[in-house]
């Protein structure tokens, strides 16, 4: 009782204490801890799960168990504590001096090397974590793709300050053109006939296909951008909405692309390393774009178009380039998406997709790379974790989003610069 009261008076007390306790752990430490945790899970996960009375390793941090089988909650909690939380915290805290030392050594090298080391660690964690279960693999891939998608929409809706509804359309263009590229050239298929090229060099050809997908959707963006950036106002919202419907309807009517039935038979080229590398590359390039002169011009256009014009910003050109840039990455994300599911049909890219992407952008936060990552990850995880609730899920997630909008109208982490050096630096 007393404890509760003191917590009410100092609501941030415990949290602050935890934060101060772990203040000297660099990101490297957390990654190493997570790596140890996933290795541990792979080694003894199954026997640990059995010992705690669980039939198998909980796939998603026990969330599915909490909602489906309440009797197993203590076991699942114990599992998450023993195999995820404890190893990470202990290794991060105990090894902090060592990791800080390593971090300082790394920081003597160029920033790129440091970043690559961190990313390699992150990839290793993902790889081992998804090794346990195929469900984890597909969920992680889709989550990474949605990060790219969210970030590219954030360029338009956050950095540029317009309201675009065209992302499902761009995604559809990307998904279909990448599929056309791979299915048409590399697969023996009844729709397009014999394979023209051998598919031994997926590593080379798939990125080419993705670039093609991105270019196609950037070209689609041009169709919207030219008329709608003549005037300021809400017309982008309408024209882009009409565009999404047009693309969807067009795809439904093109028989050689499978019409409403969709297109299947994509080769299994969206492997985890491929998705990971493309998404990291995308995030890096988009981050560079929004911090560049062009990105600053974009912010200026958003804040005051007339003033920006007076400061010699070519507002129309800036907007068109940024819009096409965002569409390019949406197309790439669509191409990856098609090759993860290995099936696309036009109804995937409808209003539901639009609501999902918009939710991710506005939940995470406008004008921020962190925000997009947080938004995409949390909405995807929530969507998966609440799956056992079935229809109730579609009440809980919207309610949560409404609350976020009411209390933080610009999203959770908005207007924050993504500073890699600050993120990775040693903490002591």
């Amino acid at each position, binding site marked *: 009782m007393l404890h509760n009261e003191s917590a009410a008076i100092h609501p941030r007390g415990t949290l602050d204490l935890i934060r101060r306790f772990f203040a000297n752990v660099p990101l490297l430490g957390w990654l190493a801890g997570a790596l140890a945790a996933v290795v541990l899970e792979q080694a003894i996960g199954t026997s640990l799960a059995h010992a705690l009375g669980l039939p198998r390793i909980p796939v998603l941090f026990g969330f599915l168990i909490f909602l489906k089988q309440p009797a197993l909650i203590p076991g699942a909690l114990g599992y998450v504590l023993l195999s995820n939380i404890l190893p990470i915290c202990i290794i991060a805290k105990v090894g902090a001096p060592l990791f800080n030392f390593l971090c300082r050594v790394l920081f003597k090298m160029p920033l790129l090397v440091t970043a690559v080391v961190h990313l390699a660690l992150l990839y290793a964690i993902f790889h081992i974590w998804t090794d346990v279960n195929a469900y984890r693999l597909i969920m992680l891939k889709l989550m990474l793709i949605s990060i790219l998608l969210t970030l590219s929409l954030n360029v338009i809706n956050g950095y540029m300050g317009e309201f675009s509804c065209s992302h499902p359309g761009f995604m559809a263009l990307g998904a279909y053109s990448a599929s056309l590229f791979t299915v048409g050239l590399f697969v023996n298929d009844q729709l397009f006939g014999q394979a023209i090229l051998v598919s031994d060099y997926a590593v080379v050809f798939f990125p080419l296909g993705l670039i093609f997908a991105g270019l196609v959707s950037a070209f689609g963006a041009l169709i919207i951008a030219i008329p709608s950036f003549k005037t300021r106002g809400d017309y982008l919202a309408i024209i882009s909405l009409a565009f999404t419907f047009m693309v969807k309807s067009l795809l439904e009517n093109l028989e050689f692309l499978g019409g*409403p039935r969709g297109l299947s038979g994509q080769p299994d080229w969206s492997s985890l390393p491929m998705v990971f590398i493309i998404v990291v590359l995308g995030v890096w390039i988009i981050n560079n774009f929004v911090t560049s002169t062009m990105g600053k011009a974009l912010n200026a256009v958003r804040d005051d178009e007339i003033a920006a014009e007076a400061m010699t910003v070519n507002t129309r050109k800036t907007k068109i380039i940024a819009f096409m840039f965002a569409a390019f990455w949406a197309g790439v994300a669509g191409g990856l998406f098609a090759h993860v599911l290995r099936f696309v049909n036009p109804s995937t890219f409808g209003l539901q997709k639009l609501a999902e992407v918009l939710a991710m952008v506005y939940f995470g936060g406008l004008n921020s790379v962190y925000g997009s990552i947080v938004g995409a990850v949390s909405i995807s995880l929530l969507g998966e974790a609440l799956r056992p609730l079935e229809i109730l899920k*579609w*009440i809980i997630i919207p309610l949560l989003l409404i609350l976020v909008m009411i209390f933080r109208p610009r999203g959770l982490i908005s207007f924050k610069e993504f500073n890699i050096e600050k993120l990775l630096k040693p903490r002591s």
Partner: protein
Amino acid sequence: MNLTYILQNVINALQWGSFYALIALGYSMVYSILMLFNFAHGDIFMVGAYIGFALTTALVAMSAAGVIVLPNWLILILTIILAMLFTSCLGMLVERIGYRPLRGAPRASAAITGLMIGIILQTTVLSIMGAQRVLFPSLIQTTTYNVAGVSVTNIKIMIVFVSIALMIALHQFVQHSKWGMAMRAMAYDYTVVPLMGVSINAIAAMTFAIGSALAAAAGIMYGMAYPILDPSMGILFGWKAFVAAILGGRGSIMGACIAGFLIGFIEIFVATIFPSTLRDLIAYSIIFVILVFRPHGLFGEPYSARLRL
């Protein structure tokens, strides 16, 4: 294609367009006064149809059980009035919960809450009514008149006339009443008008109430013409009506009505001339082209909006 055939489709298009026009009015009024997209409006239309369905079913059952015996035409009128009332309460609730707390926030955030409220409404109806479609009870015996080869049902005539009557009533209200004047003033400048003693909250609530009532009327009439309801019909109609509202021009009641009828005409005639799978593609392409050449809509005036983003 002969003249009768065209006339027949004109009548179908009038009916089809009147649904769009009635829903578009709700979007257009909210947009002109608060400058925001009420993305929940399509789902309010859907809920209105379901409220109408529940009321009709209840009243018919009561009549059958002999609790209160009412003739069918009275049930219809009662249903329409009560459903409009209940749905306007829902509209005001949506405004109070989803939009009023966000009045100082970026407009896009309010659009997101609207979208989410729409999803909540749809899920709620889905979980109450189940996924299967429900059949709207028919209250009026359908009579088909045959005028020079063109067949017209009494329901079609009623729908078109009631819609046009509602539009004229709204027009009179906005142009000739004190409340309507406040609404027009608010649409002109919503920062200064509150200083003149007009409560923006009252006007906003009233706008939502009127828009939702019109949507409910559209929902019931839709149920009478196409007696099958399902929870996703709000999305289908709502987004097209939204496009109609913008196509009509900001804050133009007449524009929203005409654009609603225009979309109805485009859809019906595209479906009669081309394969019906091409309907959306051609309809949206036409809208796209119209917007390219008239970016402010058919009847909207160019304005310089300083976006509150």
